[in-house]
């Protein structure tokens, strides 16, 4: 399995390939569509992630020392961003998660296109994943 650094590099290569914003956003929207369905019964307050303007639900579990993240949003672009995070983090060990630079999105030429609100929401989600990893470490 690819380590986080490799996955980030893959994503960076994919994003670098896009010619304009339309393709970048379309790719994010499509990534979101491919996200496995998040169980409806978990779309409750206990799984709600606060700090986003749209609604985000999120859950994390450990299987054989590897993190299993699932989540969704009612907004398509946020859903794509969640998919992006999961692509980097899912299946990683706590140590791997903690060694992943928290600013990896900067390498994707994406942050410039995110509103400040959304970038804050995304950063919050990354912090949450890191906290979960710290507790498991």
């Amino acid at each position, binding site marked *: 399995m690819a380590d986080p650094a490799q996955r980030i590099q893959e994503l960076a290569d994919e994003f670098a390939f896009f010619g304009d914003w*339309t393709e970048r*956003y*379309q790719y994010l929207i499509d990534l979101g569509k491919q996200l496995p369905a998040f169980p409806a019964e978990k779309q409750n307050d206990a799984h709600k992630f606060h700090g986003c303007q749209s609604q985000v639900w999120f859950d994390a579990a450990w299987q054989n020392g590897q993190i299993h993240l699932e989540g969704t949003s009612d*907004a398509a*672009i946020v859903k794509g961003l969640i998919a992006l995070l999961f692509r980097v983090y899912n299946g990683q060990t706590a140590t791997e998660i903690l060694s992943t630079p928290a600013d990896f999105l900067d390498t994707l030429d994406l942050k410039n296109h995110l509103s400040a609100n*959304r970038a804050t929401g995304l950063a919050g989600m990354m912090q949450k994943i890191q906290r979960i990893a710290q507790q498991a470490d």
Partner: protein
Amino acid sequence: MSQRFNLRALRAEFPALDQSVNGQPLVYLDNAATTQKPLCVIEAVTHFYRHDNANIHRGVHALSARATEQYEAARHSVQRALNAAAAEEIVFVRGVTEAINLVASSFGQRLKAGDEILISALEHHANIVPWHLLRERLGIVLTVIPVNDDGSLDLGALPQLVTPHTRLIAVNHVSNALGTLNPVAEICAFARTLGIPTLIDGAQGLPHGPVDVQAIGCDFYALSGHKVFAPSGVGALYARRPWLDELPPYQGGGDMIESVRFDAVRYAPPPAKFEAGTPNIEGAIGLKAALDWHRQQDWCAIAAHESSLLAQAQEGLAALPGLRLIGQAEHKAPVISFVIDGTHPHDIGTLLDAQGIAVRTGQHCAMPVLEQLGAPQGTVRASFALYNTHDEVEALLRAVHRAHRMLS
């Protein structure tokens, strides 16, 4: 159109409009949140800092005298803009939010448990939460004029909502979320027959034309500078003179007193009584420039221009399948709120921004009304100002089509 209304010349007065965003010419349609500033406002503020900066009132030196003179001249400009009877009826505040908090605080001292404040379902949170705080503190009751499905107020319900305990009717002039233009003169006339004072949240009123508080017949009228081409952090509360004499001060501090001893304080006469501490002097000077500029405009021509922008946008957007306009009252300011079934407003807003178009998405600080009108996720709101063009409406329509295609 009249010679005084030359759109190209008008736009040239607003430097911030002339820029690219994400590689596209900026189309600024977030005017209900804040308007861009004309050069005369920018220069008035800069000039103050370059030449006249000093604290106002009580200064013995030349700069302080000049600053005071300009600050008080700004009060006269607000008086003229609202057609208030006297400059003393104008209190400078941070904006509508502070104006309403001032009234809730000072007028609120006359209230007791069981007293009622009547607001409308169209209110901005700034005209809900200050009253809610009083409800928590004093046990007053908040009653609400309902809104019809088209976003207009159900004024037929008004007589039943007023009781012998109603102490104030507080409604907005224009709804920020939907653009509904409320018949405030009619509401105030009704309130006057019952001896109930009225407060009008005018944040969205003055940006679209002159306001006459005497013709409206309200007791209080609040405005925000940033909505009317002036700096942020400055605004005004108009209060009919008897209220200013009668109500207790809002905050204590310097500038609002005549004499202070440890056992007794004499307050200054209004409006100083309500202006504790050093105010936003440069803001008031910017507001003066904006309102003097506002006065020069041909509002007949602008009203015609703004309603044709609104009509063009409404017609174009309504043609898009799955798009629902939220709020289609007969009388509207140029504000258009919409949702597209199956898409989130934030996604539309993000994809519009990518195309250089600035709109606002979300609840617009008016959660109750959006929930009622079937838009609990909020709406996309495009709000126009006098400097927007028909080409910009076309750009909006193209961009919404494109965003919709990308999301479906």
